[in-house]
């Protein structure tokens, strides 16, 4: 890291972003925290606001649909993140081992790999809804040619979530691959040459050279993808609308419905949002802790 100066002016450069984040980010969170202890209902604007203590928390935690949506959010985020990072690592290794010295192919394939990540979730949802379609879908057509029956990817309770997760992995694995490729290239060549000399197998190289040198980057990509996974409303609401039933309904979708779409229970939804916020912060703390510990170990 560069040697830092103590010029006064530089301090004022930081201020606007910090102040903005506080006013536009932290204050609304505090407002949501306050609201979660009241009885605000957007369907009853004339009702007087009343402090009702932890009632909202008790009700939302006992709500089966909230528990299910929380489980769905966690499954979607974890599976999608782990899947995209692992597949991304595999793709990055492929690019590194076979295409590193073929710039034209590498550029072409990398460009292709990045397009899904830049594509909006709405378009991605359309693409995969179409592919999964029982009648028009390419996947069911191929399955039909191979002699299998039609699979209802998005309307079968047992596989709807996995179908959505697979879409998410498709969208982000190429993005993860490019980030990890940059890390692979920056590993000193001598390590690999030495491995060659002692005749290390591919898996030994993976275990003793690649993973240790890539640990920091892997965690950074994991964190980045996890943040992206938290914004899942667009993908899932267009692909399945939370269905079949509530099999793919995530916290965002349920709380929105609770606050605005359904009975207007904004305060109860705020309690749910605060719970989600706490879970998110705790899981990020764990990841960041791991990240910093490995940084110290370097």
């Amino acid at each position, binding site marked *: *890291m560069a*040697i830092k100066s103590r010029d006064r002016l530089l301090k004022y450069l930081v201020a606007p*972003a910090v102040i903005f984040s506080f006013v536009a980010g932290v204050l609304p969170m505090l407002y949501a925290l306050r609201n979660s202890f009241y009885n605000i209902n957007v369907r009853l604007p004339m009702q007087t606001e009343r402090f009702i203590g932890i009632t909202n928390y008790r009700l939302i935690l006992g709500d089966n649909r909230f528990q299910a949506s929380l489980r769905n959010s966690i499954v979607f985020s974890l599976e999608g993140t782990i899947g995209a990072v692992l597949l991304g690592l595999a793709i990055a290794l492929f690019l590194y081992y076979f295409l590193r010295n073929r710039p034209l192919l590498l550029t072409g394939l990398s460009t292709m790999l990045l*397009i899904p990540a830049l594509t909006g*979730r709405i378009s991605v949802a*359309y693409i995969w809804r179409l592919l999964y379609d029982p009648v028009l879908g390419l996947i069911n057509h191929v399955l039909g040619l191979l002699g299998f029956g039609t699979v209802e990817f998005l309307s079968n309770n047992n596989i709807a979530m996995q179908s959505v997760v697979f879409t998410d992995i*498709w969208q982000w694995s190429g993005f993860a691959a490019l980030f990890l490729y940059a890390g692979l290239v920056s590993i000193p060549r001598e390590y690999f040459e030495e491995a060659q000399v002692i005749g290390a197998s591919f898996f030994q190289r993976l275990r003793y050279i690649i993973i240790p040198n890539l640990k920091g980057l892997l965690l950074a990509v994991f964190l980045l993808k996890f943040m992206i996974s938290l914004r899942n409303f667009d993908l899932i609401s267009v692909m399945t609308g939370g269905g079949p039933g509530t099999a793919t309904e995530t916290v965002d979708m349920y709380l929105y419905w609770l606050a605005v779409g359904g009975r207007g229970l904004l305060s109860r939804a705020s309690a749910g949002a605060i719970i*989600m916020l706490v879970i998110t912060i705790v899981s990020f703390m764990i990841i960041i802790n791991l990240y910093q510990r490995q940084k110290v170990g370097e």
Partner: protein
Amino acid sequence: MRKKFSSLLVLLLGVGLFLFVFLPIFYIATMSIKSQSYVVSGEFSLIFFKPSFTAWINTFNNPRIWTGLSLSVRTATISTIIAVILGTMAAYGFSRYKFRGDDDFLFFILTQRMLPPIAIFLPYTLVWQYLDMIGKWYNLLIPYVLISLPITTWLMHAYINNIPIELEESARVEGCSQLEVIWRIVLPNSLPGLLMTSMFNFALLWNEYMFALFFRNRTLPVEVGAGIRYVELTPWPTLSAQGVFLMVLPATFAFYLQKRIREQPITF
């Protein structure tokens, strides 16, 4: 023999990888130039069908697509510019200025990205209602800057850290003021990073759906996403054309961005 076999395997893997990404996009693109009657007729061909541009003509004749486009361009551009200016200033400060808790402040900005979107939406909706701002286009600017500022600061911080500080020091020795240093040395050197960050942000905000829907702004993703509510007989060619229309602009960034991402590892 073994060498030949392994290069064949590499070729197969490479083609497989290409098709894995390409086929889904190709499929929706061809769907957009099929006619509705062909689609419902039950015939199936990936390439050999009579093209029909009805879906695209429908899309371009739909005034909602154009109002959505103009709203999307406006909100995404303005928010990107604000976020990039604020984020780059902060990134430079964090990279070059030492003060108590500077890493904590940097981390604080990054945490804004971890907020669950619903936790942002719920308090904002009350405030916007109070200010009568639901449905006004500019109600998106603050949430948009909020979600793009962390990524901007993070990427620019990683980028500016790689610009050698010696360049700035020698300019100072030659009598440039701090502002001149920023204008003449830092900005020209961070131009590729600025371009990369702006593209990322623009793509993120161009594709943003949830806040636009919740705050009742019919941006392009909201107009396109509304198409799925058909209960029976989904008009897939039209939806496909709209889906493709939505993805074209950010996809043009792919070539530039893949080069930048591969160039140097970006960590925290």
